């Protein structure tokens, strides 16, 4: 319990620091947005009026405080480009990116765990060497290239889907999933390779160095029992941490993939906002993603603590 509370506190402090830095980066450093909004030939009175209405003439900490308060209410600022509340802009897009991310993660876990375990069982066999080579290649292919290849093979040649014709989940969930599976595969492939490699090396290092492996064999355990009953549990801790990092990584990956497949998600919005320097939107998205990263790492810590009781002492 103490361990969890400590980690929770750490997470909260991290969020405060991150949100502060993000605010600093996007509200203070770029300076005044009024010229972008009004144009260079606006009268000083209009500029002053706009600054006052946007609350830009308040002291820095007050602005930060009210932004944070607003965040909890769901008021995330107002877009420079569209003059819309950022919250409503994000509203429809977060579920889409969430779905894509979730699908990728499911794929990663569903494929890499069995493959990693299988390859650990059959160490140094032909299968294992082939898998290793495939892994190497998969990690070298940029996800957006995979996306383009998938678009070509499955979209244009086999015509299993029509590239660019994304269907919103609200309209037709099934069709949406059928479309999202391809970008999800593009995101997942290199990370499946990395997770398999991670799992394999973790299990191998346990098998090689752990004393309890020899003890288990001495009690008459079969190789399978040793692997799945003992080694797996011990090898899992670094894998869980790695999967948490992957979770965060996938979100970044979706920024690029959404472009490849023309998916109107959060990533695409982020990109547009970066290009047009629409700082309130960028800021809100970055903080949301940071929150996601902190949350996922916290969950990974909690899970690890359940697997490895020694961690509870720290």
């Amino acid at each position, binding site marked *: 319990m103490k361990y969890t509370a400590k980690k929770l506190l750490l997470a909260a402090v991290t969020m405060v620091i991150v949100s502060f830095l993000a605010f600093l980066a996007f509200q203070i450093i770029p300076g005044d947005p009024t010229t972008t909004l009004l144009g260079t030939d606006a009268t000083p009175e209009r500029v002053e009026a706009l600054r006052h209405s946007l609350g830009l003439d308040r002291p820095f900490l007050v602005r930060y405080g009210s932004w944070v308060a607003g965040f909890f209410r769901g008021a995330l600022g107002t877009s420079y480009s569209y003059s819309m509340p950022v919250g409503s802009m994000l509203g429809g897009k977060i579920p889409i990116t969430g779905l894509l991310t979730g699908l990728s993660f499911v794929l990663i876990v569903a494929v890499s765990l069995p493959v990693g375990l299988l390859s650990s069982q059959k160490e140094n066999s032909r299968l294992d060497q082939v898998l290793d080579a495939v892994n190497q290649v998969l990690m070298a292919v940029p996800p957006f290239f995979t996306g383009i290849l998938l678009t070509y093979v499955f979209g244009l040649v086999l015509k299993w889907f029509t590239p660019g014709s994304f269907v919103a989940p609200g309209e037709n969930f099934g069709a949406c999933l059928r479309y999202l599976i391809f970008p999800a595969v593009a995101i997942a492939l290199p990370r499946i390779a990395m997770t398999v490699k991670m799992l394999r090396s973790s299990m191998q290092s346990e098998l090689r160095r*752990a*004393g*309890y492996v*020899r*003890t*288990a*064999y*001495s*009690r*008459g*355990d*079969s*190789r399978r*029992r040793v692997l799945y009953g*003992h080694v797996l*549990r*011990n090898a899992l801790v670094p894998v869980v941490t790695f999967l948490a990092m992957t979770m965060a990584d996938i979100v970044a990956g979706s920024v690029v993939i959404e472009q490849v497949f023309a998916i109107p998600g959060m990533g695409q919005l982020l990109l547009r906002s970066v290009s047009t320097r629409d700082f309130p939107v960028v800021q809100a998205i970055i903080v949301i993603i940071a929150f996601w990263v902190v949350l996922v790492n916290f969950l990974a810590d909690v899970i690890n603590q359940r*697997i*490895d*009781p*020694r961690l509870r*002492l720290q």
Partner: protein
Amino acid sequence: MLEIQDLHVRFHDSDHEAVRGIDLTVNDGEIVGLVGESGSGKTVTAMTVAGLLECDRVEKRGALHLDGCDLLRCDRETLRTVQGKDIGIVFQEPMNAMNPLMRIGPQVEESLLAHTKMRKEERRRLALAAMADAELSNPEGIYGKYPHELSGGMLQRVMIAAAIVSEPKLLLADEPTTALDVTIQAQILRLLKKLNGEKGMSILFISHNLNVVRKLCSRVAVMEKGKIVETGSTDQVFYHPRAEYTKRLIAAIPTRRKIT
């Protein structure tokens, strides 16, 4: 019961044999000590008896029988029927030999799980009984704990309990007291002697510490560089050593008598 004849063991990545033709017997109910310094081949012998050497890294020759069953054969199935059931092993470092993420209870029951189809309650009962036999004062309490919560001495008793729970014919103890405090050492030795007396379990005790061997074993074999240079009853070997090496080992034992 355990018969070793002309055993040769060579590791593939070495050009000389680790065990160069040894003969050793352990009869029912005996405690036999195998003494030697590091590199003498005593641990390799123990691991060969236990069947824990990886077959593709090792070349074995000779005869090794446990009640008639040939243990030099490499197929996993044959070895598995013996490991844990007829031979129980206690290793040197208990903290290292246990799975840090598993509770004590299931680890003591490990050989029961591997060899029998008992139900959980039955296994737990036998595990608790074995832990009591190993002189653990609170078996129920310890059952649910993790290895890092126990001291070295307690852990070694747990290891002993895990080794004897299936009532093996032979207990292989590979330097079980070397990593423990001296006071605990004495307790563990007494425990082993008691188990030997009560259950008639033979013990093959490997050590480099002559004093310890003298307290526990009825027969002793001395190994040097892969060969057995002397065997006999404990009294015989200690008070009337014949081999040079044995004499040197005995002379090297630190005593409280003044050096004149």
